[in-house]
């Protein structure tokens, strides 16, 4: 009862006294017994119905029975994708869906390493042509200073069709069926399938150009708009023109604005199947962007449909309903429960690769060479936020693939004496297979070069940074906090990126020695000696005579981070240096980095594309974080900057390797980073899954996967027989436990009233 209520108690006899009918209290015993029997019968019937409703075993199958034996891949996602519009999507969990639907002109070869670009919808990987300031064609090998514009001519294959979609539906007169819906009709729409008719049309070069124009549309907030503004000719100016020309939003929704009516010099439709992209100066890495969904085609009809007034309010947007030419289309988008990709009936066809790397044939990865893709009919992804149910359902055979959480790691993986990862006996008995790959990522400890103590170009600071780099043992970190899933970093380039060197030639000689065929971190005594040379004998600051204090900015504010932070303090304590941790969340961490207030911090980078430029730009002077770039250490070295400018425009080859070696030596010597580690991904898949080869660059690998549903059905049935005895046991325990109660109850019933 709330305080606001005032209660008035009226003197009134309790209704209780009115409800003591003696006759009812003394009901016949036979009536009581028959009521008990009826209740018991009801219970038995309810139990029978419940068990009957469970259908054929296995009862714990989370999928409908009619899907048994179908060619469906079952997976899970742990976080709902934020964006499915290729203009905005920029994270791996989003790419795992849209990369199966949208087709940019290029893709990465599934099997070849190092990662190699091959055509997807394009006829060939485009070669750049260079123009001078007057627009004259320059010959190959021309003086780079004369290059004003680089032009890419992309020719796409004819005959490629879009998936069936209402945006393409036309009536008998050739008018688009749903492009001019009445407000009343729009108000009744809840999902795209409420528009029953669908059509298709051929993919054209115009669609690729349309998407590049969308990247510039300020209202679409593309994350790469800033970057492309620096490279694509006239992109920034086009963005401003669009802002002025496009109609303003009405009730929060921007009406359809046909981008075809406004051109800019950076992109040009040459003919139905060809288009050009013009780059200011040179940017050889641009070709890698052509393999990302940002550069996938977008038909104008899709925007014309979804940008009608009221559509966004009814959640019908391109961010929710993708439309592409790829092997799959999204037939169910309920990211709170399940996302389903189904085979696109209009897919243009593609064959499984016929070439691979040595060992691929033996591994069975070329058994399907030349066969038409995709191999599966559908992929059902369920939302599984918690790792425990995810793992258990994988073990039951209800997910075909799985990662390995820390909780389940020891159950799944063991390391042999040589440090090689393998599966435990339990996993092997189930026929589960392990795939590992060192990621094209790096976790590094960055020293802020603007800091008075650890930063700067002085020999003192350099020695201090090197000493810390030796003392902080990332091998131990990998072992304790990553279950051994990682490789200690020797430089900014992880394996798989051109320029990375393996073996003795690839070690960081300032931090490691080569011993017993592997890199071995230098002893901590050497770090102490370096510290003494830097003027901090026994880790003491000569100015104060007290231990040197260094602040560490950490994004590990949660309870899980305590152990990591404690470990980090211990590493610095080896040198007698006091590490003062300023732990915060990622939100607070980012502005600190942008302002350059943290002396030491840890951060990571995941490659956009397999080119050394995508890592060295993190150490490029003009790209400093405090100036708005991604160089979190705020490192600037004129020689490195000059070499970077040279290297980024070079083709892969011995000359480029030599420049990279020189750059690597500079950053090892200056030590703006302690090259923490390159994470290693471990994934598991069941025996009925085929064509699994980790490809950390390609996102459209679903089409290569094959499966054998028959084996899966057998295994599921064998692994999940219903166990019924616990139900019987519970009933028995309750019955036995009830006996003394019944005895006491009877005794009480017979006893005199209190």
């Amino acid at each position, binding site marked *: 009862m709330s305080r606001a209520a005032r209660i008035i*108690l009226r003197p009134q006899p309790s209704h*209780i006294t009115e*409800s003591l009918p003696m006759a009812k209290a003394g009901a016949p015993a036979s009536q009581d017994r028959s009521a008990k029997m009826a209740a018991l019968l009801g219970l038995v019937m309810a139990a029978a119905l419940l068990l009957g409703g469970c259908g054929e075993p296995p009862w714990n199958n989370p999928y409908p029975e009619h899907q048994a034996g179908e060619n469906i891949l079952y997976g899970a996602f742990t976080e709902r994708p*934020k964006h499915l519009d290729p203009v905005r999507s920029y994270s791996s969990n989003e790419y795992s869906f849209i990369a199966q639907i949208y087709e940019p002109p290029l893709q990465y070869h599934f099997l070849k390493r190092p990662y190699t670009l091959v055509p997807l919808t394009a006829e060939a990987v485009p070669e750049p042509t260079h123009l001078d300031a007057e627009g004259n064609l320059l010959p190959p090998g021309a003086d780079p200073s004369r290059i004003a514009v680089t032009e890419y001519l992309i020719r796409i294959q004819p005959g490629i069709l879009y998936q069936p979609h209402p945006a393409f539906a036309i009536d008998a007169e050739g008018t688009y069926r749903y492009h001019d819906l009445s407000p009343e009709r729009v108000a009744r729409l809840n999902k795209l399938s409420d528009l029953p008719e669908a059509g298709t049309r051929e993919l054209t070069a115009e669609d690729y150009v349309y998407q590049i124009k969308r990247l510039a549309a300020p209202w679409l907030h593309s994350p790469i708009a800033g970057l492309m503004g620096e490279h694509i000719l006239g992109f920034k100016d086009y963005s401003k023109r669009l802002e002025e020309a496009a109609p303003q939003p009405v009730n929060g929704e921007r009406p359809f604005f046909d981008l075809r009516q406004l051109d800019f010099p950076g992109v040009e439709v040459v003919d139905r199947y060809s288009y050009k992209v013009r780059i200011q100066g040179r940017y050889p890495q641009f070709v890698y962007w052509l393999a990302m969904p940002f550069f996938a085609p977008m038909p104008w009809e899709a925007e014309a449909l979804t940008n009608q007034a009221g559509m966004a309010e009814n959640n019908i947007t391109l*961010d929710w309903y993708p439309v592409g030419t790829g092997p799959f289309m999204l037939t169910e988008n309920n990211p*709170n429960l399940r996302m389903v990709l189904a085979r696109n009936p209009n897919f243009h066809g593609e064959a499984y690769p016929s070439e691979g790397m040595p060992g691929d044939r033996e591994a069975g990865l070329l058994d399907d060479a030349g066969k038409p893709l995709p191999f599966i009919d559908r992929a059902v992804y369920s939302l599984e936020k918690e790792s425990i149910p995810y793992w*258990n359902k994988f073990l*039951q055979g209800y997910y075909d693939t799985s990662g390995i959480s820390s909780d389940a790691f020891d159950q799944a993986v063991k390391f042999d004496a040589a440090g090689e990862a393998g599966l435990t006996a339990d996993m092997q008995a189930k026929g589960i297979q392990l795939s590992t790959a060192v990621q094209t990522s790096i976790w590094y400890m960055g020293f802020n070069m603007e800091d008075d103590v650890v930063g700067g170009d002085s020999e003192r600071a350099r020695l201090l940074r090197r000493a810390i780099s030796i003392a902080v043992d990332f091998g131990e970190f990998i072992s304790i906090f990553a279950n051994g899933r990682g490789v200690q970093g020797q430089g900014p380039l992880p394996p798989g990126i051109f320029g990375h060197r393996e073996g003795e030639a690839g070690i960081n000689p300032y931090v490691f020695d080569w011993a017993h065929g592997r890199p071995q971190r230098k002893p901590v005594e050497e770090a102490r000696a370096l510290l003494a040379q830097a003027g901090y004998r026994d880790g003491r600051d000569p100015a104060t005579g007290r231990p040197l204090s260094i602040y560490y900015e950490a994004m590990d504010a949660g309870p899980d981070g305590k152990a990591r932070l404690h470990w980090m303090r211990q590493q610095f304590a080896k040198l007698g240096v006091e590490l003062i941790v300023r732990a915060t969340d990622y939100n607070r961490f980012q502005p600190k980095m942008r302002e350059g207030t943290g002396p030491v911090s840890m951060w990571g980078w995941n490659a956009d594309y397999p080119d050394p430029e995508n890592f060295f730009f993190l150490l490029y002077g003009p790209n400093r974080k405090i100036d708005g770039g991604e160089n979190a250490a705020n490192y600037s070295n004129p020689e490195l900057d000059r070499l970077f400018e040279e290297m980024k425009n070079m083709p892969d080859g011995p000359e480029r390797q030599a420049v990279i070696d020189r750059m690597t030596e500079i950053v090892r010597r200056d030590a703006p980073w302690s090259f923490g580690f390159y994470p290693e991904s471990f994934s598991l898949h069941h025996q009925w899954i085929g064509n699994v080869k980790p490809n950390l660059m390609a996102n459209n690998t679903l089409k290569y996967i094959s499966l054998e549903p028959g084996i899966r059905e057998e295994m599921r049935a064998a692994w999940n027989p*219903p166990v019924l005895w616990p139900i019987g046991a519970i009933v028995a325990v309750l019955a036995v436990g009830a006996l003394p109660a019944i005895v006491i109850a009877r005794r009480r*019933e017979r006893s005199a009233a209190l």
Partner: protein
Amino acid sequence: MSAYIIRRLLYAIPILIGVNLITFVLFFVVNSPDDMARMQLGDKRVTEEAVQAWKADHGYDRPLLFNSQAQGLAALTDTIFFQKSVKLFAFNFGTSDSGRDIGYDIRQRMWPSLAIALPVLLVGLAINISYALMIVFFRATYIDVGSVVLLVAMMSISGLFYIISGQFLIGKLFHLVPISGYDTGLEAAKFLILPVIVGVVGGIGTGTRLYRTFFLEEINRDYVRTARAKGLRERVVLFRHVLKNALIPILTGVVAVLPLLFMGALITESFFGIPGLGSYTIDAINRQDFAIVRAMVFLGSVLYILGLILTDISYTMVDPRVRLA
């Protein structure tokens, strides 16, 4: 009673403004509009211009609570707080920061929440009341003592333990139901069995102990003595008379939580993969989607107030001596 209800509804307005203000302050103490923009735009290659453009597009480019640049009333109205709050009072939740219609999402997601909460409430009530009556029936015996010990132990165990144990035993070891997941229509039934069992078992400790107290309070009343003096059997006294009178606090307590059944259970929904409003709220907090967090807190407050009003009304219905004025 009408005057009372109208007065209570008017009282609700300052309460809701206060709740909204506290939610706003707490949210923006932890997150800034810049953080929200970066969360939506991603971590990589996001320029300051993009952040500012996102804020302008989503109405987060104004001052938080007070606009010192504006004159008169606009100093208060041309703020994020006012602009984002005023529509809530018309139950117009607007769109989430990622562009989805919040009202539509709530309407979709309240059903899975209800599909768990309602059976848990009804089955839980039946079991807890029956068990509490049984304990009272066997009061001062080893059954009473043993049950109280068991109930205290059950109360002391974390809800998470019941969830993980339930999934491990019933889903993993015995293979009787799916460990997690959800589906629509009749297919949903097999996914609801386990969370309902877990919800009921997890609530037995607290519920039964509470109801036992209610029943023990009643058992020493005069009418019970009268009933026994008339020669009624103990079972009849308990189930016909004590139960009826003790139902008043039980039912009014239940009425208070009825509207909140729509709000879902945060951890249960997350672990069982139920796409209800609990997981909707958790996701929004993790994604720093203020629009959803604000809407869900507002809705929760409204439902709570509604629950309290219904409780007061239900008092008058089950106990004619009570009058609301």
